[in-house]
C-alpha cells in the first residue's frame, strides 16, 4: 500500500506493523503528532497496544524498562529536552539489555528555546549504549523501525531511530507501507531471555561490585560489535522481502573520488543533488551517508574511502569545545589507518537553519581549495 504520509505518521505505521505491546511517551514538539496518532489509533480500537500516558519522558523510559523486563515489545518517541530528560534511563535500558525502540525527532536543545532540527540531542546520547540509526526519508523511517526491532531483539540492545524535525516529521511523502502479514513474516514475536516468572522468582539489575561490573560492560560492547553483522543480515532480509535496503552507510557519486562528503539525515538528500551537479562539473567527488551512528561504522567507512584525499563532514550538531561529532568520530576511525584523508569538519544548520545546496557547495568548494582545514570547526553559513 502506498500512501503519502508524514515522517511521524510513518513512525506510527512502524509501531503498528511491529505489533508493539506497550507504548509510553510524553509529548514534545516535533514528536507530538506521533503520540497523537497513536492515541487515535488506540482509541479507535485499531491498535491493541497499551499506551501509558506518563507524566514525563523519564517515566516514559522507566515504564518501558519495566514493561520490557516484563517481556513485551515496547516503544517510545521523543525529542530534544525529552531525550535529555531520559538520559539516566537510556543508560539503564542498555545496561539491562532491553530491546526498546525509541524514535527521536531531532531538535535543538535550549536555551534559547528552539523547536527546529538539530542532531545535538541524539548525538549527545552517544555513550548511553544505544544503537542509533538516522533516516533520510519517511520510507526509511518506517523501514528502519521494523529493522530496529529485529536488530534490538537479536543483540539485546535498545535502538534509537532518528529523524529530522519538520523536514521529515511534518512533511508528507509517498511511502510504501507493507502489510501486517509481510511485517510479521519479517519480525517474529519478542521472546525475552529472562521473562518475569513468579514461579521462579529472580532479582533483576542486582547491584554489582567491581568484581564483575567490567564484564557486564564488556558484554554490552560485544553486543555492539555484533551489530554490523546482524544489521546487515536484517537489511539483506529486508531487501529480499521488500526490495529496499539501507546499509550502515551508503556511498554514492563518483567511484574512487578524491573528495568525499559525509552527511546524515535529510542533508544527505540535498547533498545527493549537489554531488550530482559537481560531478557533472567534473569534480572527483562522492557522498557518504551515515545511517548507523552507533556502533560507529568505522570499518564500513574505511572500506569505501580508498583513494580519497579529503573528507568533508557536515555536522548538524555541536559538541562545544570539540566541534561536530560525526567529524570527530570519523577522525577517530581514521587514526589507526596508514592512509588518512584530511577531515574537514563543517558545522551547520543548528537550530533548524536550512542547509541549502549553496551551503553544501560552499563546503565542498572550501575543501577543494584548502590542502587542510583552517581549524577543527569550519562554520558553514555563520553570520560573521
Amino acid at each position: 500500500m502506498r500512501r503519502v504520509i508524514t515522517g511521524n505518521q510513518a513512525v506510527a505505521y512502524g509501531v503498528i506493523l511491529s505489533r508493539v505491546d506497550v507504548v509510553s511517551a510524553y509529548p514534545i514538539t516535533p514528536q507530538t503528532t506521533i503520540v497523537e496518532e497513536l492515541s487515535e489509533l488506540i482509541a479507535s480500537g485499531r491498535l491493541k497496544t497499551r499506551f501509558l500516558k506518563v507524566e514525563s519522558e523519564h517515566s516514559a523510559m522507566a515504564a518501558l524498562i519495566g514493561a520490557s523486563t516484563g517481556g513485551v515489545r515496547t516503544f517510545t518517541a521523543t525529542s530534544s529536552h525529552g531525550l535529555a530528560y531520559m538520559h539516566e534511563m537510556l543508560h539503564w535500558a542498555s545496561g539491562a539489555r532491553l530491546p526498546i525502540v525509541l524514535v527521536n525527532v531531532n531538535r535543538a536543545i535550549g536555551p534559547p528555546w528552539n523547536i527546529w532540527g538539530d542532531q545535538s540531542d541524539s548525538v549527545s546520547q552517544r555513550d548511553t549504549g544505544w544503537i542509533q540509526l538516522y533516516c533520510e526519508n519517511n520510507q526509511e523511517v518506517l523501514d528502519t523501525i521494523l529493522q530496529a526491532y529485529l536488530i534490538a531483539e537479536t543483540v539485546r540492545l535498545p535502538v534509537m531511530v532518528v529523524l529530522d524535525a519538520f523536514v521529515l516529521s511534518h512533511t508528507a511523502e509517498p511511502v510504501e507501507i507493507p502489510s501486517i502479514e509481510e511485517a510479521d513474516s519479517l519480525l517474529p514475536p519478542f521472546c525475552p531471555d529472562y521473562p518475569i516468572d513468579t514461579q521462579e522468582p529472580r532479582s533483576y539489575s542486582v547491584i554489582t561490585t567491581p568484581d564483575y561490573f567490567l564484564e557486564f560492560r564488556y558484554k554490552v560492547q560485544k553486543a555492539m560489535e555484533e551489530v554490523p553483522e546482524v544489521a546487515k543480515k536484517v537489511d539483506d532480509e529486508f531487501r529480499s522481502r521488500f526490495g529496499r535496503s539501507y546499509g550502515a552507510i551508503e556511498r554514492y557519486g563518483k567511484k574512487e573520488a578524491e573528495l568525499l562528503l559525509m552527511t546524515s539525515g535529510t542533508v544527505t538528500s540535498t547533498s545527493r543533488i549537489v554531488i550530482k551537479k559537481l560531478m557533472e562539473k567534473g569534480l572527483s567527488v562522492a557522498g557518504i551517508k551515515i545511517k548507523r551512528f552507533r556502533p560507529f561504522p568505522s570499518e564500513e567507512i574505511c572500506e569505501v574511502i580508498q583513494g580519497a584525499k579529503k573528507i568533508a563532514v557536515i555536522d548538524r550538531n555541536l559538541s562545544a569545545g570539540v566541534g561536530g561529532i560525526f567529524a570527530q568520530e570519523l577522525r577517530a576511525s581514521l587514526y589507526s589507518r596508514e592512509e588518512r584523508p584530511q577531515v574537514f569538519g563543517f558545522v551547520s544548520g543548528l537550530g533548524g537553519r536550512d542547509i541549502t545546496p549553496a551551503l553544501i557547495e560552499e563546503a565542498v568548494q572550501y575543501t577543494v581549495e584548502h590542502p587542510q582545514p583552517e581549524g577543527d570547526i569550519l562554520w558553514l553559513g555563520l553570520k560573521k
Partner: protein
Amino acid sequence: MGKQITFKRESEMPMISVSLGDMEWNKTGAWRTQRPFYEEKTPPCSAACPAGNDISGFILKTAKGDWEGAWNLIREENPFPGVCGRVCFHPCESKCNRGSFDEPIAIHALERFVADFAPRLSKKTGKAGEKRKEKVAIIGSGPAGMSSAYHLARLRYDVTVFESFPLAGGMLRMGIPSYRLPRDVLDRELSNIEALGVEIRTGISLGEHLKLEDLKDYQAIFLSTGAHRSRGLHIQGEKEKGVLSGLDLLKKMNLSKRIKMGEKIAIIGGGNTAIDVARSVIRLGKKATILYRRSREEMPAFEDEILEALEEGVKIRYLVNPIRVGQKDGPKRLECLRMELSEKDESGRRRPVPIPHSNLFIDADYVVIAAGEEIGASFLPEGAEKREGIVLTRRDGSTGIKGVFAGGDLASNQRTVAHAIGSGKKAAMAIDAFLQGKDAEEVIIQHLIGEGPSLSIFGYLHPGERLRNPHVVTFEELNMDYFEPAKRQGESKSAVKERIKGFNEVSSTLSEGVALEEAERCFGCGTCNECENCYVFCPDGSILKREELFSHQVDYDYCKGCGICFTECPRGAISLKEEAK
C-alpha cells in the same frame, strides 16, 4: 542454594545481573557483638512461694486449658494445691509483678481451680516405682509431715507416718474450720499421698505410745508435730470451767464434739485463730465478740478474714485487755483494762499500755483464749535443742541427733501451711541426701528458688532438667507494651445469710471461663509462652520455631545481635550477653 558462586570467565556469566543464588552463605552471625539466648528465669511469685510452686508454669498451662498439666506441675512441688489454694496466705501474690501494673494475679484462686478441676479429668496419681530398702518415720501428719512423706515416697522410700490423733491432717483438720477448707478437699489430697504407698498410723503418739528408740528400724526420722499447746494469758480464772483455748475449741468442733457454751462468747486475741473461733461460733448461731488489746491496724489476723468476720456479725472490741476472768461457774464476767498505744515495739507494732483506773466489765457465757500456740516439748527426744520456742535445725532441717530432722511449726516461727509444706519437702531432700551420702546442705542450696528460702525438688527428682534460675525477674525487666489493664478475677463468696447457716465453704472455685481469663492476665515472668514476639520482630528471621521444642531457638548463623528479641520479649525470657570475642 546457599552456596557462593564465582565466575572465572566473562563467558560463564549471564548477559545481565539477574540473581542466581541466595545469600544464605553470608553468615551474618559474624557481625554480632551481643548474643541473645533463651533463658528461663524465676518469677518473683515462685520465689515467694514457701511451698515452691512453679507458679508461672502452672498458670501458663492453665491459660492453655491444660488443667491436668497444670495440676501435675504443681504437684511436682506440692501435694496440697487444693488446700493451699484455699488457706495459704498467698505471699506469692504480694510479690507478683502484675501488682506493679494493675493488680496481682489471683494465684491462689487459680491453684485452687486447678486442684478442683484437674482431678475430675484424671485419676492418675503416678506410682512411685519400686521402693528402696531404707525406711523413714514421720511423726505428725500435718502439712509438713505429709509433704515430706509425699516427696520421700516419690524418692521411693518406705514411709510410715505416726499421728497421735485419730485422723490425719494436723491443723488442716484440727484447726482450720471447714467453711474455709472442706474436708473432702483435704481427704482427697491426703489419699493421693497415701496412694503412693505412704502408711499413716493414727492414734500413735510419740512420747506416749512410742519412743524414739522404738524407731530403730527407720534410717531417718522427721519430726513434724506442729505447735499444739495453747499459750495462756496468765490471768486469774483462765483455768476455770467455761474458759477454753481457741485451738482446743476448734479441735473439739472439728472432731464434731458437742460443746456447751451458752449464747454470748468472748474471744480474746487478734490472730487468725481468734477469727476462726469467732466465725465458727457465729455458725453455731451464737454471738461472738473479739477482745483485742491493740487497734485494728495492729491486728495480726488477715484483713480479708477480719472483713468476712465483721460481715458475718462478729463484734470486735479494740484496746481492751482482760485482766481477770470473774465468776467460777456459769456466765463469766471479764474484767478488762482500756489500753492506749504508745511508741512502736520491736515487732514494729505500737505497744499497748493500760490506761490506769479504766477498768470495765464484759459479760459472756463462755470465754475463749486465742493467744497463740506453742510447741509441745515433752516428747522431744534428748539431743534436740530448742531455742526461742522452736526446735533448732540446721539449714537442711537436721537436728542435733543424727538422722533426725524437724520441720513445720515445730521448727519454725513462720507458721503457715505453705511453709510447713516447704519444710517437709526440704526434709525429704535432706533425708535422701543423708541416706545417699550426699551433702544435704549443698543439695538444698542447689535447688533454692531465686535466693531462697523457697525450694524446688523438681530438678532433684529429674536430674538433667534445668534448675530454677537464681535470676528473679523484676518488673523493670518486663515489656509492658503488650499488656492492657485487666481486672483481677477472684473467687466469689456466698451471701452472708447463707454463710452463717453452717460450715459450708464460703468462697467458690473459679469457673473455667474466669480461670482462663485470670490465667491470661499472668505476664509469665521469665518463661517463654510462645507469644511469638521474638519471631515476629526479628529483622533477620533468626528465631527458629521448632515443633519439638517448647521454646524457640536463636539461629546464630544469622542473628546479628540487634537485641530486638530481648527488648520485645514481654516477659524477660530472653537474655543478652556480650559475645565472646
